[in-house]
């Protein structure tokens, strides 16, 4: 395969061809400089100095002026609730990159496919994006199930996927960059905080019954019992879509834990918190920490039903830094003042920027080169503050604890002092 590609590359760069290309490019360069704001011009010039044959030796959909990328989320079906924010954030990032001159002098063109909340559809669409459209990279997936469905295709076709969701870890692929936190990043520091600051001695673990909550609670239990030497007084799982939690709430009342540790997702989340409040378990009487409720979920739960509980995330919309203020303002300008930004939405926003940085460092759109260049890339403009790509394809990031406010926003009450190293295969936690 690589040999073929190089052959093509030298063909394309034959003398007569390249002369034509240069003159064509010069014209576009002038147009480009005239059109683009002054700031963007240097990037443009840098990009234009590289011919398409140079930046694309693997037959990706790259022309002199455009590079095509794919976007693969659920715009319809159950998961549209969650994935809409990611679609919006990726679009925003791509618009901003295009306004500043694009990547390697080329504007990003998006082909959006709908995974329709159905995992085989995700697989089929990713195949279409990689094999028919030859996209340079894909921003997409949300649930672990959808990621697992497309993974073999990305590995076989040597595609590149930027995956935004915080997830259970236990995965690392050459063809995927994980822009959300893996489980240990999200869980361990939060539990330390619960034991040190909130003096929690006993924990009740609750989850929806599928891989992410189960793996996460397994890590949490190990950490609580083996490292913090505290007690787990209960661990319970309920089917996805469960709408009645009264029996569970009674069991919590019997166990009287210092901390409820909740990883419930989807519509069940709403039912759980509404019924918790109705059973008299409110924030003034009970400490609750969750890793599954962001600003997006609070929209459905209702701020008044969740106020005072704590969430462990790497990002909250209320983060007070200049990057984030600009990001929130741009997001609301594009999607309306009532839109909210959760952790995953921000992580999705990082995807296009990390890819851009990778391409520019590699001087190429080729997947192998971008992958090789990516470790060590820093993003100082990230809304969450600062991130850096680890050689294991996850991000170094901080973890924060937010206390929910009645208006649906979070007040950040604690933040890990250092960046936390991603560790998708934690020893002693499995």
């Amino acid at each position: 395969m690589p040999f073929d590609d190089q052959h093509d590359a030298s063909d394309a760069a034959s003398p007569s061809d390249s002369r034509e290309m240069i003159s064509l490019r010069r014209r576009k360069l002038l147009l480009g400089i005239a059109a683009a704001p002054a700031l963007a011009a240097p990037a443009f010039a840098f990009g234009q100095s590289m011919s398409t044959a140079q930046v694309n030796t693997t037959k990706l959909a790259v022309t002199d002026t455009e590079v095509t990328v794919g976007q693969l989320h659920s715009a319809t079906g159950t998961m549209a609730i969650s994935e809409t924010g990611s679609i919006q954030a990726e679009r925003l990032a791509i618009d901003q990159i295009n306004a500043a001159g694009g990547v390697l002098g080329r504007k990003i063109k998006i082909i959006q496919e709908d995974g329709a909340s159905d995992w085989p559809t995700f697989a089929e669409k990713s195949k279409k994006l990689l094999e028919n459209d030859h996209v340079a990279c894909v921003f997409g997936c949300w649930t672990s199930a959808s990621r697992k469905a497309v993974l073999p295709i990305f590995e076989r076709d040597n595609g590149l996927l930027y995956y935004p969701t915080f997830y259970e870890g236990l995965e690392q692929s050459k063809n995927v960059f994980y822009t959300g936190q893996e489980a240990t990043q999200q869980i361990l520091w939060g539990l330390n905080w619960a034991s040190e600051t909130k003096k929690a001695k006993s924990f009740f673990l609750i989850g929806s019954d599928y891989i992410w909550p189960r793996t996460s609670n397994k890590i949490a239990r190990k950490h609580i019992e083996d490292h913090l030497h505290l007690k787990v007084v209960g661990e319970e799982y309920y089917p996805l879509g469960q709408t009645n939690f009264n029996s569970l709430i009674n069991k919590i009342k019997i166990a009287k834990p210092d901390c409820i540790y909740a990883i419930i997702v989807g519509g069940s989340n709403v039912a759980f918190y509404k019924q918790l409040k109705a059973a008299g378990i409110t924030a003034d009487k009970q400490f609750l920490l969750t890793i599954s409720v962001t600003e997006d979920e609070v929209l459905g739960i209702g701020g008044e039903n969740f106020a005072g509980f704590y969430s462990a995330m790497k990002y909250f919309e209320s983060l007070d830094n200049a990057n984030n203020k600009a990001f929130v303002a741009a997001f609301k300008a594009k999607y309306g003042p009532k839109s909210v930004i959760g952790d995953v939405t921000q992580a999705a926003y990082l995807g296009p920027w990390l890819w851009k940085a990778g391409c520019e460092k590699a001087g190429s759109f080729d997947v192998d080169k971008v992958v090789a260049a990516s470790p060590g890339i820093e993003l100082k403009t990230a809304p969450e503050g600062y991130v850096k790509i680890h050689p294991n394809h996850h991000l170094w990031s901080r973890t924060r604890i937010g206390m929910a406010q009645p208006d649906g926003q979070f007040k950040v009450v604690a933040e890990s002092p250092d960046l936390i190293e991603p560790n998708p295969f934690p020893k002693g936690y499995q």
Partner: protein
Amino acid sequence: MSATDILNITLMQGFAGLSLFSVLLLIGLGLAVIFGQMGVINMAHGEFMTIGAYTVYVFSKWAESMGVVATNTFLPLAILAAFAIAFVFGWIVEWLLIRHLYRRQLDTLLATWGLSLAMQQMFRSTFGPKEVSPTLPDWLMGSWSPAPGLDIPINGLFVMCLAIVLTGGVLIAMYRSRWGLRVRATVNNRTMANAAGIDTKRTDRLTFAIGCGMAGVAGAAFTTIGSTGPTSGSLYIVDSFLVVTFGGAASLLGTVASAFGIAQTQSISEFFLSGSSARVVTLLTVVLILMARPQGLFASKVRRV
């Protein structure tokens, strides 16, 4: 654990069972009318509930803009509106779709499933794909504590009252009104009912619309205990068919008994087992009983044609 603690937990757990019973009853009633009386397998039943939930959402937004008094009192009005809107929608659906399929029961399954997908996308386009949260009256969302350590959810009580009112209403309408008489006559023997001068087409349409309206009321009530989103209704569809089939399709009393039985099994096994295994226990019990009594708990005395 002291004796009062045990008493409190027992009381609250008893209430949890009753509360689940009311939920199942509410979702089952509308379907019992449509599936039980008319034989239409309405897969879009959950979406009619969603209509009710979104009606409450729209009313709550309106009430919020009107001030505190409106926020505290809008709910009864919203529930009536939920019935009306789901009723009208059901009327239209029957006229456009269902009436062409009365003799093809399996086709109604496919058609209404398609309808449910279309309705979900309609909600998504109208209200957005994200879940919404209606602002409900404060008095409804807390707990009532008659003794320390004993908390009775007020929204649970509310759902229970609504379930009682609705069940009573349906039973009276079915056995004491002209409409009920016509429905029972049509169910018993359509041809004979027609010959006796009953407009069975009109009866069908009204029955379907009333069933949908009841789904709307259920959906409105569930905004107090569950989620409001484009696919919220689909969370209840399996349970609703479970309740109606287990009870014996054509019997309203069967629906009540089956809702009670399933709720108690589920609630008690959830308390002693984990959530997922409780579900297994409940479904296994239902399957075993249905194997012994395929017609459900209460067999109807209808002669099937």
